[in-house]
């Protein structure tokens, strides 16, 4: 396994959802238990809130905390799990919460990442391009900053960066989706029609697939949507449980002219991608073979399946196949809340897919992103001929924090996905080029040499909205080649070895009381093809105790003709870090209390013991994207 994850500071025993009860029986008992547990949760929350208030008044009382936390531990379960989706909340055992000010909370809002004005968001849905506008839909709770009452939010943009909010596209108002209009995908038909397949949670809490389409295709904004009157179009097959059947993908067309759709499911602990064929998106036939499955990976959510060109540099429409094409199969793994993918070959004759490397199959190999990231979904942009990828970034602070500040979650900057021709074993992701339209002042730093154990402030005026491109070379101090075993990310940036860590200190204050290092750690100093560890260290990102602070990282191949390089987008409480041209990506969430507004700084650092580093950087301050409601009534 390449990824290293060392959860720091806080125990999170509830992040792994408890094993689901046997669903096929004991429903009535479960409902009673559910009611009791719900009241217990409410009671526990009330107790918790009262206790937190008391703590602030009287000073910390450890005994009370421990009693309450174990009580909460026993009774509360992350949001979403009972409804039959992956856990959507951090339920942290400690009730000690930082004394946040409004200024600190306001600072956390991002400037150029998509997020609604308030409340909860999760999975991106049905991304598409229509008549000059990119559309994004998203799981949205119009009533609260926690998951629930899920509707489809809607926004449009000319350039994937400057978004305008539109009215809700779909709300849960039919028996076939009354308990939630869940995740879905768009299929663009050759004749211009748009078919939207989405999962509905029915009045009986069964996961079904529904069809919707735009009310008016000549409306560039696609404001209104019509749900097919005789939904659902797909119900769980007999061998799949009613809560294990969701997130239909974009369809692709096969040799017989029928459309194929894949839907995630599970049987026991094996994750599945099922295949259904259709001509009209109303009548479906289930394939005898599934697209693929991997034992031990559990439920596959948000399955995504798309071709990449292994020779060219452009994206491919979803139905393309043939020589010179590989297929990416991606699944969001419910049990670990990680997005995994693998490259492989699609056999159109029987709609099956085989990974190039079975040891790195879906769910056990590469991750789409090695940080806080889930429920990603791609679409084909016909204008710029590229494959664009969205990803949902949940908060890593607590539900309480989210309720206080009134919002939760952001989307990544959309990423262009291409095949990595140099390694042949992974995809490359990079932020869409339109992000460059946000660039304001640029600073360039050439050939800065840093000795071991040094930190250098970079003289830029503001450090909370940045686009940083950095290249590093190492200069060994001794004459011998250093070669260590796989070194990982260690305990973070304070963990020194001969060849690392070195990189950037983002969202740091002058005294480095808070900082988020993004860095490399090498295992050997030769110029051969080698690997390095690319890491993001959140352990000292914030003084707030209740925030989840992880060291994220991945081993990344570095070819002999390549310098070490990273691109980092800093946007207040989100940092997206792209290593080696996007060969590995890490998304982090940070909630500093000091390193905010004018106090935030950017540093270069070298904490290795046996090498100097030489760094060259280009740093741009980025403007806000001014994401706001569509100005229907005002002139600009």
């Amino acid at each position, binding site marked *: 396994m390449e990824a290293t994850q060392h959860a720091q500071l806080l125990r999170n025993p509830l992040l792994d959802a408890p094993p689901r009860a046997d669903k096929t029986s004991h429903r009535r008992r479960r409902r009673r238990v559910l009611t009791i547990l719900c009241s217990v949760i409410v009671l526990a929350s009330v107790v918790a809130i009262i206790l937190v208030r008391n703590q602030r008044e009287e000073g910390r009382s450890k005994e009370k905390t421990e009693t309450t936390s174990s009580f909460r531990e026993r009774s509360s379960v992350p949001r979403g799990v009972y409804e039959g989706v992956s856990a959507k909340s951090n339920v942290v055992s400690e009730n000690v919460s930082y004394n946040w000010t409004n200024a600190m909370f306001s600072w956390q809002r991002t400037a150029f990442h998509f997020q609604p004005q308030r409340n909860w968001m999760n999975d991106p849905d049905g991304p598409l391009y229509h008549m*000059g506008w990119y559309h994004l839909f998203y799981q949205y709770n119009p009533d609260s900053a926690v998951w629930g009452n899920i509707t489809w939010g809607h926004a449009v943009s000319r350039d994937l960066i400057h978004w305008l909010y539109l009215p809700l596209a779909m709300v849960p108002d039919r028996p076939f989706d009354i308990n939630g209009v869940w995740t879905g995908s768009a299929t663009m038909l050759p004749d211009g029609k748009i078919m939207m397949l989405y999962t509905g949670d029915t009045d009986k809490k069964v996961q079904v697939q529904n069809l919707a389409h735009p009310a008016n295709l000549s409306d*560039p904004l696609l404001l209104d949507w019509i749900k097919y009157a005789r939904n659902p179009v797909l119900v769980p097959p007999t061998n799949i449980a009613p809560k294990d059947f969701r997130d239909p993908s974009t369809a692709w067309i096969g040799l017989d002219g029928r459309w194929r759709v894949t839907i995630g499911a599970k049987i026991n602990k094996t994750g599945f991608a099922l295949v259904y064929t259709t001509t009209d998106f109303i009548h479906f036939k289930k394939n005898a073979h599934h697209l693929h499955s991997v034992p031990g990976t559990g439920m596959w959510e948000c399955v995504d399946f798309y071709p990449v060109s292994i020779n060219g540099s452009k994206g491919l429409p979803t139905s393309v196949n043939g020589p010179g094409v590989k297929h990416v199969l991606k699944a969001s793994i419910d049990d670990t809340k990680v997005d995994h993918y693998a490259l492989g070959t699609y056999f159109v004759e029987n709609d099956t897919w085989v990974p190039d490397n079975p040891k790195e199959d879906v769910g056990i190999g590469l991750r789409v992103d090695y940080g806080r990231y889930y429920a990603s979904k791609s679409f084909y942009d016909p*204008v710029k*001929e590229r494959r664009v990828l969205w990803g949902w970034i949940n908060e890593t602070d607590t539900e309480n924090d989210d309720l206080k500040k009134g919002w939760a979650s952001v989307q990544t900057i959309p990423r262009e996905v291409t095949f990595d021709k140099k390694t042949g074993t992974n995809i490359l992701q990079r932020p869409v080029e339109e992000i460059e339209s946000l660039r304001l002042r640029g600073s360039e730093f050439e050939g800065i040499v840093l000795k071991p154990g040094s930190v250098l402030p970079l003289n830029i005026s503001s450090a909370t909205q940045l686009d940083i491109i950095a290249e590093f070379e190492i200069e060994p101090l001794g004459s011998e080649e250093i070669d260590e075993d796989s070194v990982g990310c260690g305990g973070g940036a304070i963990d020194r070895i001969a060849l690392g860590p070195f990189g950037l200190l983002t969202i740091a204050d002058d005294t480095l009381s808070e900082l988020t290092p993004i860095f490399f750690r090498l295992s050997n100093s030769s110029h051969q093809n080698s690997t390095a560890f690319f890491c993001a260290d959140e352990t000292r990102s914030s003084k707030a105790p209740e925030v989840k602070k992880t060291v994220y990282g991945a081993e990344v191949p570095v070819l002999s003709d390549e310098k070490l390089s990273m691109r980092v987008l800093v946007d207040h409480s989100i940092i997206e870090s792209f290593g080696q041209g996007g060969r590995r990506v890490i998304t982090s969430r940070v909630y500093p209390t000091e390193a905010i507004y004018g106090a935030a700084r950017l540093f270069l650092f070298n904490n290795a013991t046996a090498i100097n580093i030489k760094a060259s950087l280009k740093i741009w301050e980025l403007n806000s994207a001014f994401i706001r409601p569509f*100005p*229907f*009534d*005002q*002139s*600009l």
Partner: protein
Amino acid sequence: MRSFSFASVLSYSTSSFQVLHLLLVASLLFRPTHQSSDLGTTSKGDFIDQICRKTPFYDLCMATLHSNPLTPKPDLKGAALVMVNNLLANASDTLNYIEGLIKQTSDQQLEQALAFCAESYIPIVKYILPQAADAVSQGRFGFASYCVSDAAKEISNCDKKFSGSGQNKSLLEDRNGILQKLVGVAAAIMKLLLKG
């Protein structure tokens, strides 16, 4: 390749056709403003005069609105439609011109800048202005107004990016400049429409 298929549909102007185009554009710009009595209908002339006074480029506005017949009853909506369609015609022409320049140049930097401008103009011509015209006809003035400001942004992007040197720069500069003025007039008329 969808992004440039639109361009390939547009025929490339021969040099004489280009001259004709330029003359056409020029004639729209440099026609002397009519006295209201010349039109024969005092009220119409007054109406156009009133509108154009509220735009940043009076002469340009007068020239455009006079040279395009307004629907039987001269009204603000009709004037807006004329402006948007005129904008569209000029933008299409400029896109055509840019495509032509791309074919002719061997300077890589210049070609890159021109390609960027083409990419700014293609959505204007293909989506933004046609949708603005539709929206005006349907009374969706807010949407139309937004589209017009979108078009302004794209034209401005092209203008900023285009830092090539030589005579070509000045030619594109002029065209961009005229378009930006036309957009300014259109935007002002949109504002009037939204005020009701």
